[in-house]
């Protein structure tokens, strides 16, 4: 008797699902059309960030949203549940279901989004990435915040300048797998082969996993292991913050530079000995988002296809040209990294 009840219930469930499904596929075309007719008036542009709860990502999304809405489109800002590729896959698939016109994504992994993004492109969605790229097969183009080489050059010059041309220095990075950081570190190492930098000795690349606690441990270990250390270069926003705090609290002679958010670093930037960081670099995440938005719009309107050599106008940001990214795909470079120093930090710390 009970078994019968159970099986009856389970059957009901099956039928219910089927009914819901059928009902929908019956109404499917209607829905689709309704959505399409909506489309003709307003295109939908989506941006997928790396993770929720991070002001850098938030500013990027803000810039994106501002441009899309100003241009009369509809904007969807999607944060994944966690800073992983797994979570971004779910987000992309959900966006495919919603039938958006374009997806701009800041990828948590270069390769692991390929299947989802290919599916999106097959569904006619224009896929671009910004901030951190996906591989050439999974994108139409990439909005690069600053050329990898330029960042490497700028950071190396900062190292040269602050150390006075010679001595030991170390790098404090994010995780040992962070694609952006690794590319910049490689670029720095390449720049370092030049005669000019021959008196600089890179003693170690440490990884703080973008956790304040571990970054603190690593910074302290660097200080302990290398008493003659002159400088730490941290090309990651969490790492530079933790290192700055340690160095400043210790009153250490070791100086710091790298890539950091001005709002986070304002406390530590200064020329005197009381501050640990003389200057650092970053780009404007709002502009990254805005350029990403203009790129998405140009892709959806068919002004560009993401091929090398095409040009388009990004509103008041001027004209941009799509160039070869060196990985088989193309990219659009926002501009050189921006230098934050004591004279301009107060102006920027409230912006982002």
């Amino acid at each position, binding site marked *: 008797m009970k078994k019968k009840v159970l099986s009856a219930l389970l059957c009901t469930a099956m039928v219910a699902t089927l009914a*819901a499904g059928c009902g929908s596929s019956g109404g499917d075309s209607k829905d689709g059309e309704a959505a399409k007719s909506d489309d003709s008036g307003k295109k939908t542009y989506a941006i997928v960030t790396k993770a929720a709860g991070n002001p850098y990502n938030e500013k990027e999304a803000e810039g994106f949203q501002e441009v899309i809405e100003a241009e009369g489109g509809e904007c969807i800002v999607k944060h994944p549940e966690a800073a992983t590729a797994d979570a971004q896959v779910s987000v992309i698939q959900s966006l495919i279901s919603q039938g958006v016109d374009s997806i701009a994504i800041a990828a948590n992994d270069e390769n692991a*989004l390929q299947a989802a993004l290919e599916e999106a492109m097959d569904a006619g969605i224009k896929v671009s990435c910004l901030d951190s790229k996906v591989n050439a097969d999974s994108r139409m183009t990439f909005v690069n915040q600053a050329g990898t080489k330029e960042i490497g050059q700028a950071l190396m010059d900062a190292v040269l300048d602050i150390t006075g041309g010679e001595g030991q220095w170390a790098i404090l990075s994010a995780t040992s797998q962070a694609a952006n950081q690794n590319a910049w570190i490689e670029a720095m190492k390449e720049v370092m082969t030049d005669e000019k930098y021959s008196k600089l000795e890179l003693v170690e690349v440490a990884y703080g996993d973008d956790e304040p606690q571990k970054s603190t441990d690593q910074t302290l270990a660097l200080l302990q292991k290398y008493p003659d250390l002159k400088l730490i270069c941290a090309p990651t926003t969490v790492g530079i913050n933790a290192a700055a705090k340690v160095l400043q609290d210790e009153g250490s002679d070791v100086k710091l530079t790298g890539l950091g958010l001005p709002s986070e670093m304002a406390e530590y930037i200064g020329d005197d000995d009381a501050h640990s960081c003389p200057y650092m670099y970053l780009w404007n995440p709002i502009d990254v988002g805005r350029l990403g938005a203009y790129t998405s719009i140009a892709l959806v309107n068919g002004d560009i296809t993401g091929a090398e050599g095409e040009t388009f106008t990004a509103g008041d940001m001027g004209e941009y040209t799509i160039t070869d990214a060196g990985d088989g795909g193309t990219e659009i470079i926002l501009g050189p990294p921006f230098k934050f120093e004591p004279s301009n930090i107060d102006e920027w710390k409230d912006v982002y």
Partner: protein
Amino acid sequence: MAGKSGRSISNVPEKAIRKNILSWEGMLVVVFILMVIFCRSISPNFHLENVLREMPKYLAEAFIMLPMAYVLILGEIDISVGATVCLSATMTCMACNKELPFIAVVLVCLLVGTACGLINGLVLTNFTELPPMIVTLATQIIFRGIAEISLGSGGSVSLTNTDGFRMIAGKVGIIPYIFFLVVILAVIFAVVLAKTTFGRSVYAIGSNRLAAYYAGIPVQRIRLIIYTALGFMSGLAALFLTSVLYGANTTTGNGFEMDAIAMAVFGGISTAGGKGRLAGGIISAFVIIMLRIGLGQINMNPQLILVILGALLILAVLLPNIAGELKVKKKAANTK
């Protein structure tokens, strides 16, 4: 043996348990139907085709839920499955990039998963004093660590040849293969748990380990088999996850353990051991999947979705408990 703690099996009337669970599963079915209607009403894109298309990634977690239910019924827990998925996905991608035939790649995937499960099982059965949570915490760090070492400084690997994985990500009509596999495996796991001596032994161990041991049940062998099966299924999950990702990285499979446990618990399987049936776990897996897909489609803040899932998880256990308490009180009042 008052059965107050709910741990004794012999004294609690069989019927009461059945009735209780039946009603819980019945309720889950109702919740499922309501969930489908709810999602349908909030999202115009929530229809069969889209749902089935979004489902494979979540279904990979359902694979893990099946043996995890066994582990929970034993009164134990395994939090290393996410790392196992990561390690086998990594090895799979690497094997595939070595241009092994696809069948060998599949074997590598399942073998690595099984090996991870076997290691957990061996440590746990040889050092029975150790709590499973802490052992699997250590192996979690180790498995993911090995994946990190193998992945090297890039931290991620992508498939150079995706043909095989495209094949297993295929569909019959609009229904993906993985859906059928989940259903078939769910039936097998449910039948083994409910109808065989093995399944009954699992309940016996979960209810009272010592008694089960003295009753001649090979406690340690059963534990070993279950942990190994969990590893195997994690390997299977890794295989299908790879077919969704075409690659692996150090964060692959993050949080799978919690999701799988949540699915089982929401389905009425008790982490105290000895209670629950797989049917509940399976239905609740679909409830959770529907909820995630539906709320995802209306672009709800992902952290809020987690808050909702957390609240559901607690309420799913809390409400029946309170209702049961009230009933008991009422009965007591009546008899007075």
